[in-house]
Structure formats: structure tokens, C-alpha cells
């Protein structure tokens, strides 16, 4: 689904991504983990075209990402903290995204219903609580049946009920053949959801593979210890 070749990103003299090669499988939940500043967000943003790479190339399917924008109609993105035009109402923001994506039918309203967003539709974005904004954010990301879902710490800021609704939805979409890229610091969530783990440390990929392979190769008892051992420099 996604092929990344020799991807490099520098911010001035600071190297954030160092020669990354990665091939992300279709129809799997891929978890990007790594400490703060390891380059997770930069990697996601390069796939979305928000950040321009210094070198290397990224393919989504057959399509090579350059400065075009049409390929993003296949992607649903849920940023860490979404911000929409403040004075618009929820309904108007949804209409706006529908309009910009030129998507006229076949909407996935699953999350809108389960999060009970119907009663928030007339409120302005600036009047919503952080959690409700995050629900709107999630509902929009899933609404257009995208082939690829990129979710940046999706459950942060959600209450436990909403969080499990979202996790169920993620699994459901995976089962329907969608490719999902997630970042999170919550290890229990990773154990529950991840098919594959991408471990990023200081701009390099230290591990890419299934959860069981991760635990096996690090020879640790559980996931937490496996990750800690990679962070402490264990060979993988």
C-alpha cells in the first residue's frame, strides 16, 4: 500500500528522518511507536504531503507523492488535536469537507451516530469541548470511506466509552480491508489493535514486523519490556 524509499528529512542541520525504507502492508493496522521527537509525526505528515521531504520518495499504491493533492481524497486523517475554522458550526465543517473532497454519496455515518454528534451539529466549533472536537475529528476522518486511515494519537482526549467505540471502528475498518496507520503512546492499545509495529528511534526504523515477532526477537516477557529494551539499544 505504501512504499517509502530512502526518505530523508532535515530541519536545518537537524536530521529528523535518516534514510528510511519501509513498505506498509495493505489491510493491516500499523502502529508507529517511538519516544517524543523520534520522527513519528514527521513521517505521517510526509505521507500526507504536509511536510516536504529533503530526499527520497513515497508511493501510495502506484502513485508517487509530489506536490499534487488529489491523492488525499483516498486518505482519512485524524490529527492529534484538530482545529477547524472556529466560527463555523459542526454541520458546516462537515459540509465543507464533503464539498472540498467532492464526495457526494456513500457516507460512513457510523461514528457520527455512535458518538451522538447529531445534537452537536448546530454548535460552533469554538463552543465545543476538547473531547467533542476530537469526536468530530474522528467522524470526519472515517466519513468518506478512505482506503488509508492515518490516525495520530486518536484516543487521546476521549473518554473510555468513546475510546472503545473508536477502537471497535478501527478494527471493523481493518477487517473491511482498509490500511490503517496509528501512532500512540498507550501500550495496552497497541497490544489490543496492532497487526504490525513500526519502531522509530532517532529518525531510524529499528523494527518493523508483527507484535509477536517483536517480543520474540527482543527475548522479553511482554511488549512493554520489549519496547524498553529496544530503547535501551538492544539489537533487533
Amino acid at each position, binding site marked *: 500500500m505504501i512504499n517509502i524509499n530512502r526518505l530523508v528529512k532535515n*530541519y536545518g542541520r537537524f536530521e529528523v528522518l535518516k534514510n528510511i525504507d519501509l513498505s506498509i502492508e495493505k489491510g493491516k493496522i500499523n502502529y508507529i511507536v517511538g519516544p517524543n521527537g523520534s520522527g513519528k509525526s514527521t513521517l505521517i*505528515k510526509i505521507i*500526507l*504531503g*504536509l*511536510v*516536504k521531504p529533503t530526499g527520497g520518495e513515497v508511493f501510495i499504491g502506484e502513485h508517487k507523492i509530489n*506536490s*499534487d*493533492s*488529489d*491523492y*488525499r*481524497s483516498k*486518505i482519512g*486523517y485524524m*490529527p492529534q*488535536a*484538530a*482545529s*477547524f*475554522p*472556529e*466560527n*463555523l458550526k459542526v454541520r*458546516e465543517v462537515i459540509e*465543507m*469537507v464533503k*464539498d*472540498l*473532497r*467532492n464526495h457526494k454519496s456513500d457516507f460512513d455515518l457510523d461514528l457520527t451516530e455512535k458518538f451522538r454528534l447529531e445534537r452537536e451539529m448546530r454548535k460552533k466549533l469554538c463552543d465545543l469541548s476538547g473531547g467533542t472536537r476530537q469526536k468530530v475529528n474522528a467522524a470526519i476522518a472515517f466519513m468518506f470511506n478512505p482506503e488509508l486511515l492515518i490516525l495520530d494519537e486518536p484516543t487521546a482526549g476521549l473518554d473510555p466509552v468513546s475510546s472503545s467505540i473508536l477502537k471497535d471502528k478501527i478494527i471493523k475498518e481493518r477487517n473491511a480491508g482498509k490500511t490503517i496507520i496509528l501512532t500512540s503512546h498507550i501500550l495496552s492499545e497497541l497490544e489490543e489493535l496492532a497487526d504490525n509495529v513500526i519502531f522509530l528511534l532517532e529518525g531510524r526504523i529499528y523494527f518493523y514486523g508483527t507484535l509477536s515477532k517483536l517480543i520474540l526477537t527482543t527475548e522479553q516477557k511482554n511488549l512493554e519490556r520489549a519496547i524498553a529494551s529496544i530503547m535501551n539499544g538492544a539489537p533487533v
Partner: protein
Amino acid sequence: MRTLSKIIKYQLNDVFRSKWVVVYTAFFFLISYGLLTFSHDSSKVLVSLLNVIIIVIPLISIVFGTIFLYNNKNAITFLLSQPVERKLLYIGLYLGLIIPLTLSFIIGTIIPVIIFFKVFNENFTTFLLLIGAGIFLTMIFGGIAFLISTYNEDRLRGLGISIFTWLLLSALYDGIVLLLLQVFQEYPLEKVSIALSILNPVDLARIIVILKFDVSALMGYTGAVFQNFFSGGLGFIIASSALLIWIILPLFMGMRKFIKKDF
């Protein structure tokens, strides 16, 4: 084009609901209404209005424009994660700011003029020229604001540069020009001073309006040279082209940076 009009539509929807649009309209209404209540001499009112416009429009456009991009940074990132071209988004954001600012200015200024319509029987074309100058200044300083905030990540620095740019073009520039004219007073400087005023959009807007009044006679020989230059066909074309370049150049430079930028 369709995407652009969609972006503008939602931007306008957003911006028209914010309070500053109302405040900005009310400001021009009060100034225009106030001046017309104090004096029924349309020339005096127009000159006072010109002085207010020349100072206030560049300041508000550059400050609002700068803050507008910083405040909407996350919303811009969200829009860029949708299938929207960066070039179109930049133009859409620009027009989404310029249209409300211009409409506020026009509506605020023109309502009192309609109320006191009789006063403006003679000078109505000059009034239209004044409105034109205001629109040009809004577009120019809005573009400069976008350029500044696109190039500067730090909002405090960006705002500082914006205010300094306004100060430079509105006040310091005239001081520097006066100083130059004083130092080189023994040389024929008419053409130089015309060139210098074309380089500054604020001066350019002021001169184009001022020359419509019969005050150029008061400005001596230089006034006559200016009058000749700007009322002639070539002068008018040069002046209008200079204003257009002042709109297009900052906008284009800002857009180029916006297209390459990381969000």
C-alpha cells in the same frame, strides 16, 4: 476554480461571523459620519478621510492579515490534509480576508455619504477615487501581511516585522525622502521624487487622491510636475501598474513559500 470558490465561501462564512468585522465597519462609519456632521465642505471631509484611510487601512490590514494566518494555522493544516491544492488555499485565504476587510471599509464609509448625499454633489468622483485607494491599500497590505507570516514561524517576530513595515511605509519613508530632497536640494529632483513616491504604495495612493483636489497649485513647482505626470496617460498607467505590482509581488512571493513550506 470551483475549489477556489468553495474555499472562499467557507472562509467568508467564518470571517463574517467574527466580531472584528463589525468593529471595523463601525469604526469607518463613525469617522465618516462624524466628519460629515462637523463639516459640510466635501473637500475638507475628503482630505480628513484620506488622512485616516492612509494610516488606518495599512495598519489594520497588515496586523489582521498577520494574526489571521497565525491564528488559523491548525485550520490551514487541516484543510491541507484534504485534497486541496496549496496554491488555491493561499489565494482562497487571502481573498477570504480581503473581501470582508474591503466590504467593511466600503459599507462603513459610504453609508454616511449616502445620508449626506447633497454634500458630495461635486466631489463624488474624488470620493470614488478615495474608496479605490482604500481597496488598493487593503489588498497591498493584506498581501504583505501574508508574505510576512508565511516566512516567519514565530508569531511575535512576524507581528513585529509587520508593524515595522507599516511604520516604515507610512511614516519613516516620508522622512527619509524629505531628508534626501533636503541634502540634494541643489539638483533637479522632480523626477527622483516622482520615482520615490511610486516606490511607496502609501505615498502613491495619497498622491493620486490629493491631485484630484485643486491643491497642487499650493505645492509649487513640484506640485505642478506631479500634476502633469499623474494626470497624463503615461503617468496614470505607471501609477496603476505600480499599485498592481505592489499587490501581485508580495502575494506571489508569499504563495511560492507557502507551496514549499512544512506544516
